[in-house]
């Protein structure tokens, strides 16, 4: 059985996107032109303000089934969401950002958050506010926050895009080690992410999500966007 199964039409304003997807394990990487709907798809999976007509299932759990009036709100979906710009809560310290979603009493939540920050190598930043973090630091704190509730699905929107070259490499390697064990849908414009993370690549374009395939099968594709994205991997 597929880990994530989507058969739906998304709409937000005049925008439409038809999605037929089934992923088992390993990350699904969404690529495509700006405005093609990659971020909208992630928001729809997270339960954000997007109209969904169809069915979305995560493992045995049905998140959306419009035919049967099912719509799970975001707080019941067990997804970890890392939006563009990371969107850390500006009024909370790094530690409290991570502890926000953890259940239990205050001490237990903070202890769990501290462990996660430590795992991601940013324990020293626990008491800092987001305004005092570099891009790479904010990315790790936001990732720790997204992992804090042990999600069944991780949603990453251009997680390496705003980082400098060194932070980007570090973030890419950190994510590569995580993505193997957790079903993930990630948006990226960086061919090195595609190479490092493996998994399947789906082109989002012209109102639909093309069938996901390993990048090795896509390097010779005729699509001009894929050619421009993947040429460094062509041999």
């Amino acid at each position: 059985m597929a880990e994530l199964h989507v058969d739906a039409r998304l709409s937000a304003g005049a925008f439409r996107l038809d999605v037929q997807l089934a992923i088992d394990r390993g990350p699904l990487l969404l690529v495509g032109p700006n405005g093609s709907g990659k971020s909208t798809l992630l928001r729809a999976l997270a339960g954000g303000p997007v109209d969904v007509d169809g069915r979305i299932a995560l493992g045995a759990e049905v998140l959306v089934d419009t035919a049967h009036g099912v719509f799970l709100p975001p707080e019941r979906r067990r997804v970890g969401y890392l939006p563009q710009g990371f969107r850390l809560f500006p009024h909370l310290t790094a530690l409290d950002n991570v502890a926000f979603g953890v259940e239990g009493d205050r001490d237990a939540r903070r202890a769990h958050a501290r462990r996660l920050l430590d795992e991601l190598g940013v324990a020293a930043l626990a008491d800092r506010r987001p305004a005092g973090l570099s891009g790479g630091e904010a990315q790790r704190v936001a990732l720790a926050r997204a992992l804090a509730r042990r999600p069944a699905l991780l949603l990453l929107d251009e997680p390496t895009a705003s980082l400098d070259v060194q932070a980007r490499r570090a973030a890419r390697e950190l994510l590569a080690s995580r993505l193997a064990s957790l079903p993930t849908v990630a948006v990226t414009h960086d061919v090195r992410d595609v190479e490092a993370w493996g998994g399947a690549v789906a082109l989002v374009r012209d109102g639909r999500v093309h069938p996901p395939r390993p990048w090795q099968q896509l390097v010779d594709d005729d699509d001009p966007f894929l050619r421009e994205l993947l040429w460094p991997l062509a041999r």
Partner: protein
Amino acid sequence: MSAAARVVPIAGWLLVVLLVLPVIGLVAGTAPGELVGALGSPSTLAALAVSLRTTFVALAIIILLGTPLAWTLSRQATHPVVLTLVELPVVLPPAVLGVALLETFGRAGWLGPVLAGIGVQLPFTAAAVVLAQVLVGAPLYVLTATEAFRAADDDLLLVARTLGASPSRAWLTVALPAAAPGVLSAAALAWARALGEFGATLMFAGNLPGRTQTLPLAIYGALERDVAQARAISVLLVGVALALLLAVRVLGGRRG
């Protein structure tokens, strides 16, 4: 350095001097002893009490009604027509607002008979003062708070929701605190504007000591018989304005 490059900054600083000069003139001309004496006079204290009472009621109304509007406006690009309607009182001359209030809520105004029918008479009451203050303060609050609420965008709230927060908890523990510095600045600006309201108040609420005479009206009244008192109240209001601006700067700067 070209001549223009030298002249332009000088021209700019000339304006700063022009802006600050009257304030310096005001403060320099007021002896500290005179200030304390004039501020302690019964008429000043009465005006201070009226100002505090009315502006805090006005601010409460502005926050209560303005916050939902600011939040709603922040969720999408504001429609130019709505924006214009909200901004209008900011650019209208206060005297025009005074006439408009009389024409609407005055005894001969078009809502006057309706109000009289339920036993309400607004003009020349403390409620009229509050109404004038709400009218000039609310637009500032709504426009500034709308910008502040944009910091709590859909993605920020969606993250909070995926972390287990209900819609109301996401709003209270994420959206509101994220926007709080800007919303507090908005409230401070609106309060300062309400405190300074003069023209519309004078026309719609009159200048009745102890009832509708606020501090700006007391300055106006004192100018004819006791310039020292007018000066003292003015210095007090300069101090309040400076303290508020400083608070707004500190609040704004905390976000870095």
